[in-house]
C-alpha cells in the first residue's frame, strides 16, 4: 500500500459525510441540479466528487467495481483503506466508477429484480464537462423539464425502459456532481 493511500479521506467524517449525502440526495432527487462537494482528495484519476461519493456511501457491505483507467493500484489501495469496500467485477458491484466508455456495456451491471428493484448498481460516471445543458430530462424530481450534459442518450433511454429495475447514475466532474435516477425520461435535445 502506497503512503498516499492513507491520506485524502474525510477529516471529520460525521459532518462531512452528512453534507456530502445531502448534496448526493438533492442531486438524485432533482435531476439536472449540479452540486459542488468537498472533503476528499483521492489519487488520480478519481475526481474529488467521485471520491466524496465513495467515502459517503461505500463500505465493507458495498462491492465496488473500478472500470478502465480507474482500475489502478493507487485507487484500489485508497478505496480499500478508506472504505473497506471489496473490489469486484462488474456484475457483482453495488457501485461502479469509471469513464463512460469504460463502463459500457451497461448490461453488465445489476438492475435489481422485479420484486427487489433496489438490488441494483449505482454508476459513478467521470465526465470532462458537466453542465445543465444538452439532453432533455423529465420525470420525478423535475418541475417541467431539465437539461443535463449526458455522454449519450440511448443507454439512458434503454435503462429507463427497465423501470422499476435499472441502474442509477451520478455524473462527476472535478468537485461537482449531478444525479440521474432510473426514473428520469431522457430525450435528445
Amino acid at each position, binding site marked *: 500500500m502506497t503512503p498516499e493511500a492513507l491520506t485524502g479521506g474525510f477529516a471529520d467524517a460525521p459532518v462531512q459525510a452528512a453534507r456530502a449525502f445531502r448534496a448526493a440526495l438533492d442531486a438524485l432527487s432533482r435531476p439536472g441540479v449540479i452540486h459542488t462537494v468537498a472533503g476528499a482528495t483521492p489519487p488520480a484519476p478519481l475526481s474529488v466528487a467521485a471520491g466524496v461519493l465513495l467515502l459517503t456511501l461505500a463500505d465493507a457491505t458495498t462491492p465496488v467495481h473500478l472500470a478502465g483507467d480507474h482500475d489502478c493500484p493507487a485507487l484500489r489501495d485508497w478505496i480499500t483503506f478508506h472504505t473497506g469496500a471489496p473490489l469486484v467485477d462488474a456484475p457483482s458491484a453495488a457501485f461502479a466508477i469509471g469513464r463512460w466508455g469504460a463502463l459500457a456495456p451497461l448490461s453488465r451491471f445489476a438492475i435489481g429484480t422485479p420484486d427487489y428493484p433496489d438490488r441494483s448498481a449505482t454508476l459513478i460516471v467521470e465526465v470532462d464537462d458537466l453542465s445543465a445543458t444538452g439532453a432533455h430530462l423529465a420525470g420525478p*424530481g423535475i418541475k417541467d423539464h431539465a437539461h443535463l450534459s449526458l455522454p449519450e442518450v440511448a443507454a439512458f433511454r434503454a435503462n429507463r425502459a427497465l423501470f422499476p429495475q435499472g441502474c442509477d447514475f451520478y455524473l462527476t466532474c472535478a468537485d461537482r456532481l449531478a444525479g440521474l435516477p432510473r426514473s428520469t425520461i431522457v430525450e435528445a435535445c
Partner: protein
Amino acid sequence: MTDQAYNFAYLDEQTKRMIRRAILKGVAVPGYQVPFASREMPMPYGWGTGGVQVTSACLMPEDCLKVIDQGADDTTNAVSIRKFFQRTAGVQVTEATAEASVIQTRHRIPETPLREGQILVYQVPIPEPLRFLEPRETETRKMHELEEYGLMHVKLYEDIARHGQIATSYAYPVKVEGRYVMDPSPIPKFDNPKLSDNAALQLFGAGREQRIYALPPYTQVVSLDFDDHPFEAGKAPHDCDLCGAGESYLDEVIVDDAGGRMFVCSDTDFCASRQAVGHRGRLSPEEV
C-alpha cells in the same frame, strides 16, 4: 452544543450509510418500499423511530429542524424528538414551517406550502398498503411486482357499497407515477392532494417494519378512486374558530364540561401565524 457521548445525529456512520443508501434507492424508485436494517433507538417504536432514523441520516449541522405531531409542535412526542436532535446534532430548531429545512412529521402535512430544498420526513407505522388484504410479505411483494392492485380497489368499493362513499379517511392509498400503490402514513385524506407535485422531497420511514420510501419533488401522486366515485379530500363545514381559516384541516376541541366545542387548525404554526397578522375566528379573544 452537541453531546459528545454520541456520534453526530446519534447514529453511527455505518448505520447512517446503510440508511442513506436505502433513501437513495427510494428516491430512484418513487413509492417502492426499500428494506433497511432498522436500529434500536432510545425511544419506543410508537414514537416514530423510522422517521427519527431517516432524519438522523439526513441532518447536517446547517439544518433547521421542525417536528410536528398531528400538526402540533408542542406535544410530548414532538418536543422529545426536537430535543433529541438539538442535543445529538446541534441543529437549530423552529416551529415555523417556512424556516425549517427538515420537517419530521407524524400524521400531517403542514398547511403552508413547502418549497424546493425542504425535506419532509414522515413517521410511518404500517408502510404496506396491502397488508390488511394480505398478511404475508412474500405475497404483497409479489402483488407490487405484478401491479396486482385489484383487491385494493375491491376494498375501497366495498366501502362505497356499505357507506355510500369511500369511508377510508386516514392512510388513504395513493398510486405513485402510475406504478406503485403507496401508504401515505396516517395523514388525513384531506392532506392527500399535497403529496402530489410537492416542491419538497418527501421521505417515509417505518422503524418496526424496516421500510423506507420516497417521493421526489414534483412526483405525480393520485389517490385511488372510481369514475363514479371520485376522490374527495373532505373538509369540515367550519372555519377555524381562532384564526378564521376556511381551507385548513381542523381539530374538534371540547372546551368546557357542558360539551361546548370549538374547531381549530390542527397545524398550530399555521394558526398562530395567521392570528399574529390579525386574522380572527368566531371564538377569538376580544382585542384589548
